[in-house]
């Protein structure tokens, strides 16, 4: 098992803030909109440095999405910021009609996704956002794994012409990917080459997958671990190649089973290469209040859960 280390834990939302700040300096067409969560989204630096290109919308997310769509008419590249729940479910029709169907170059940037939002509870812990967004034709859906990757993704999506959903979160997590990485939309990243099983993970579950890989290695199981930061477009070739090599698959994500990464991979493999598959995800349930760590344990999104799913799926191999 390849060894991964980190010097500090950082929140992915701060990676977004840092990326946006860099874009503010490098790309005069980038504008930012926020619905009264500037601090939570780490958009303060952009707002302070570029007050003419920062739009405080107030608590009116539907209006924010519409204004963002309008700003593209005139060549701007709008980045909207609010919690993932208010970035998707609350404004689904606005995104569908004014952004996705209209083909507008809007970047919908969503923090506090999933259970790790913590104590605020299920009203704010959206676990359906990846599914909602990936169903929209033409929408790119990205869920990076750490601070550095979120920063790189933020910068990269400004150079892509079209609607993007960028999901990140609140808690600090190990920052282990390279600070100088080039982010390529739609490119699966090999973290560990293995032979017995493939673990496809996204977002906060990528580090948990690495931890699971270490647990499994100690038991003689050689897991291939792949970071799927782009849920859509999915790197089909990488998924199929790895599934072919290892013969069984576990997916891991902080999302509902319905509509998430596991759903996309299961759909692909059932068409192209039927492969035993287990999903580590929330199973048709809302979240609840608690610390992020407690919630990840209670809802079965820990390294140990991934390792258990691996053993189960290996047993299913022919």
């Amino acid at each position, binding site marked *: 098992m390849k060894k991964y280390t980190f010097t500090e834990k950082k929140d992915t939302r701060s990676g977004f803030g840092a990326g946006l700040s860099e874009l503010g300096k490098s790309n005069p067409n980038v*504008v930012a909109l926020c619905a009264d969560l500037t601090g939570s989204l780490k958009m303060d630096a952009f707002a302070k440095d570029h007050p*003419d*290109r920062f*739009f405080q*919308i*107030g608590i*009116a997310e*539907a*209006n*924010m*999405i*519409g*204004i*963002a*769509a*309008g*700003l*593209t*008419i*005139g*060549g*701007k590249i*709008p980045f909207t910021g609010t919690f993932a729940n208010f970035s998707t479910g609350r404004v689904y*029709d*606005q995104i*569908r*009609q*004014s952004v996705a*169907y*209209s*083909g*507008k170059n809007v970047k919908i940037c969503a923090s506090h996704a999933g259970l790790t939002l913590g104590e605020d509870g299920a009203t704010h812990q959206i676990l359906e956002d990846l599914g909602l967004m990936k169903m929209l034709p033409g929408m790119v859906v990205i869920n990076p794994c750490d601070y550095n990757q979120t920063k790189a993704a933020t910068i990269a999506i400004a150079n892509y012409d079209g609607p993007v959903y960028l999901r990140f979160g609140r808690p600090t997590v190990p920052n282990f990917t390279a600070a100088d990485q080039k982010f390529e939309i739609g490119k699966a990243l090999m973290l560990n080459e293995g032979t017995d099983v493939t673990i496809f993970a996204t977002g906060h579950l990528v580090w948990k997958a690495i931890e699971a890989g270490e647990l499994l290695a100690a038991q003689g199981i050689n897991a291939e671990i792949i970071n799927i930061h782009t849920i859509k477009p999915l790197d089909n070739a990488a998924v199929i190649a790895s599934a072919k090599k290892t013969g069984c698959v576990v997916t891991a994500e902080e999302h509902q089973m319905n509509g998430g990464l596991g759903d996309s991979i299961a759909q692909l493999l059932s068409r192209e290469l039927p492969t035993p598959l287990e999903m580590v995800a929330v199973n048709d349930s809302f979240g609840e209040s608690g610390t992020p760590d407690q919630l990840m344990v209670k809802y079965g999104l820990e390294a140990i859960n991934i390792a258990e799913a691996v053993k189960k799926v290996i047993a299913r191999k022919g």
Partner: protein
Amino acid sequence: MASVAELEKMIPQVRRDIVRMVHAVNSGHPGGSLGCTEFLVTLYFGVMKHNAQKFSMDAVGEDIFFLSNGHISPVFYSVLAHSGYFPVKELATFRKLNTRLQGHPTTHEHLPGVRIASGSLGQGLSVAIGAALAKKLNNDNSIVYTLHGDGELQEGQIWEAAMYAAAKKVDNLIATVDMNGQQIDGSTDQVLPMGSLRAKFEAFGWIVLDTEKGNDVISILSTLTKAKELTGKGQPIMILMKTEMGNGVDFMMGSHKWHGVAPNDEQLAQALNQNAETLGDY
């Protein structure tokens, strides 16, 4: 800009286009389209600075119009075609398979003249604010126009946008509400009385203009001219425009029943009899 006589000459032709388009596919929304014919003809041919020959999505240096109540697409398409955005004969493809003239306007099929999809109501004012803000960032002093149905104002997003536009001094924006007093289930007063819209928009911080004669070219022209003079003064501008749904086709006037119903052959003939072919049918 076209003269009043030229504008008035176009109106029966646009009405013919509307009823013929809707009749041909036995679907679409003739009532609101007819009620806004004078407004859209006047806006596109008598007021707006725009380049129909060379459509640019970004519209730098051009005025922009957003149709927020997208269901009145027949009048929008007819006016865009006669402006020169696309061939008039393409009106014959309205609502047919593979058309660029979808039931509700969209950019998806790249129809020149359309800059946003509309149909799901209440979204156009926000989009217009965004476009107006982009114009300000680009130091472009052109104006952004919108049209909304009065029933559409029941959507909450309109009021989010209204609050924002006034608070942030979006003063290069002229919105118009088609006050025909009708919506699908009946009159707006039966469905959901909205009280004084003037008082509401004034309370939100808008400059409000009224016109009782939204089917009269001279009245529309003078109201839009006045509205233009009021831009750049720190407030968005709202025009509350009384219209007659179905105007110009007597049996469609004064009723919500022609909101989304096509005329039959006999009714089409009757409608065409009432509106002369002034520019040539498509």
